[in-house]
């Protein structure tokens, strides 16, 4: 589904990604771990098409199609979803209104009519129950005055609404208490199917106890320096990142 080949990317002439290779197939969960500043969030942003990052070499392809010229909203229409590490506030725009706009814009891109209001309401009801979200929450302004946990839960609610092909969760576990973590992970697991894929970016193995990865990759200095199964996450938890760094420099 996703194929990243020798990807180099920089911001303001500073190279952050230095040759990433990654292949994610439908039905798989991949975890990307690594120390601070290793390029995890940059990788997520580059896949989503954020313009401040310049791709200097290599390709990102979705279902065999090079995404180079696709604008961020076009990537979203093709099924790329990013759960932000720091979701932004949009005052005066309710969660419901935002979702309605997002869904209808994606439908428009596919040549479909707006989703009828009753269907939209039904979908909202279903997905908010899945994430144990109080419906009052949905009429509040997007992320304005939300707690850290509420913001993250709202991100996964949006993912549930949009049903993406490829979901990238960027440090979704940070700022979550254990109950919220369980609810969020539970939501992600229910959305998982043989047709979609998830990339989980995290520092800690805590989230991976709930969302169990098929593959774990360690990112260091803009490169994937080690890949393995879920046991690699446990090893990292135990030993830290230093041995990986040493291994990488050797």
């Amino acid at each position, binding site marked *: 589904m996703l194929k990243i080949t020798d990807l180099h990317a920089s911001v303001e002439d500073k190279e952050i990604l230095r040759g990433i290779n990654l292949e994610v197939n439908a039905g798989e969960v991949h975890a990307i771990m690594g120390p601070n500043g290793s390029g995890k969030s940059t990788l997520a942003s580059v896949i*989503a*098409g*954020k*313009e*401040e990052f310049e791709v200097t070499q290599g390709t990102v392809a979705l279902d065999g199609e090079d995404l180079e010229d696709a*604008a*961020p*909203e076009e*990537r*979203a*229409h093709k099924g*790329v*979803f*990013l759960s*932000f590490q720091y*979701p*932004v*506030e*949009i*005052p*005066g*725009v309710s969660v419901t*209104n*935002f979702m309605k*706009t*997002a*869904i209808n*814009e*994606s439908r428009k*891109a596919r040549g479909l009519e707006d989703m009828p209001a009753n269907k939209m309401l039904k979908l909202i009801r279903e997905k908010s129950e899945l994430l144990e979200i109080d419906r009052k929450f949905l009429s509040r*302004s997007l992320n304005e005055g939300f707690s850290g946990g509420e913001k993250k839960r709202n991100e996964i609610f*949006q993912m549930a609404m*949009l049903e993406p092909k490829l979901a990238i969760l960027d440090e979704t576990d940070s700022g979550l208490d254990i109950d919220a973590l369980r609810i969020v992970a539970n939501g992600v697991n229910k959305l998982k199917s043989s047709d979609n894929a998830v990339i989980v970016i995290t520092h800690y193995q805590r989230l991976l106890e709930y969302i169990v990865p098929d593959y774990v990759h360690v990112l260091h200095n803009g490169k994937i320096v080690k890949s393995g199964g879920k046991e690699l996450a446990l090893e990292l938890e135990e030993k830290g990142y230093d041995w990986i760094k040493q291994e990488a420099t050797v």
Partner: protein
Amino acid sequence: MAYTEEELKKELETKEYEYGFYTDIESDTFPKGLNEEIVRAISKKKNEPEWMTEWRLEAFRIWEGMEEPEWANVRYEKPDFQAISYYSAPKAADPNKSIDDVDPELLAMYKKLGISVDEQKRLQNVAVDIVVDSVSVATTFKKTLGEKGIIFMPISEAIQEHPELVKKYMGTVVPKTDNFYAALNSAVFTDGSFCYIPKGVRCPMELSTYFRINEGGTGQFERTLVIADESSYVSYLEGCTAPSRDENQLHAAVVELIALDDAEIKYSTVQNWYPGNSEGKGGVYNFVTKRGLCEKNSKISWTQVETGSAVTWKYPSCVLKGDNSVGEFYSIAVTNNFQQADTGTKMVHLGKNTKSTIISKGISAGKSQNSYRGLVQVNSRAENARNFSQCDSLLMGNECGAHTFPYIEAKNKTAQIEHEATTSKIGEDQIFYCNQRGIDTEKAIALIVNGFSKEVLNKLPMEFAVEAQKLLEISLEGSVG
């Protein structure tokens, strides 16, 4: 029964055959320039009574002794008042012009606003196959309103038919001496609306100038007078949401509202006159004086969405004369490209327990300058006066400006005055967030701007709010590269 605009439009369509065609189009225009002769000639043309002519002449003499104000935060080339023609008959449709001759950019805009082809033709002065005689349609309206004793007609007719009301109230809220443009308007106004709601009557529909006769050629110098008698209520909508590309450089209108004891007037405006092109050429100078007088326990609400005009100078105000009266001002002002707006309100608290609320939302893009200017004045006898003001500015890009000039004069110790202000910028992160959810940049900006303006948009009557939202989108198109 809620009379919707849709129903009105339908009525308009079905009435057109019944009442035949209107073809009598005047074509005379006065020579350029302004002097006593011209003022007299305007009055004569309108068949006005002697007192009206004298009223105009007095205003003209006052105007002659005045100078154009320069205190506003706007820069423009002053109009040459002797180079303007002060009376021009309604523009006739040009039979040789077809819809194909109209600027395609403008047509695209009309399409977005959902304006019908016939309406587009009317706006562009293109001959329409069937000329609707709006007088007849307006007559059916008048009947419905007439049953309640409501008077709604062009001010020139009101001068003929209800001189006692016009004489009693015109110039009492905005006197001829008020300011340069108000004096000019008093001397040369050619059209406008008059509305009177009798005691205890709640006007059953939103009164809109859209359906008033002669609306096609909006006067350069419009004069509006709305009187709500004791315990009455009226909601008045001004302006058409179609972007009329009016060639008139100068618009100096005067609007006076009078709310007698226990009455309420809600006055909503959507202004989108030609703002000039993206290089700052052309566009309308909109120098408007709007003021309302509140008697005991009465309420006046001004709501405005200002997206057009090259230069705007406008301060819809309330004089809270009666005890317990309430004044409100809700405003969205959008400036893009080279537009300049200096707009706000004056709340003058004279009576006891008077309350005022000011919510102003300024949105600046391009190289535009957007200023809020407001005065909250509490008189020495105005015990327990309260005011709440909130002025928010939203900036797009790095070349525009937002300014706030709040003036407060409190002469009574019991006054409570609150002022809040914020300035924010549409961030790239906000846009990327929307993009990532499948919303393109233009739509994202519209969403953010609508969210920012929500408190004011909510004050507009339903169908107006929808059009105002679309208008905000269109006004800001292309503002982020």
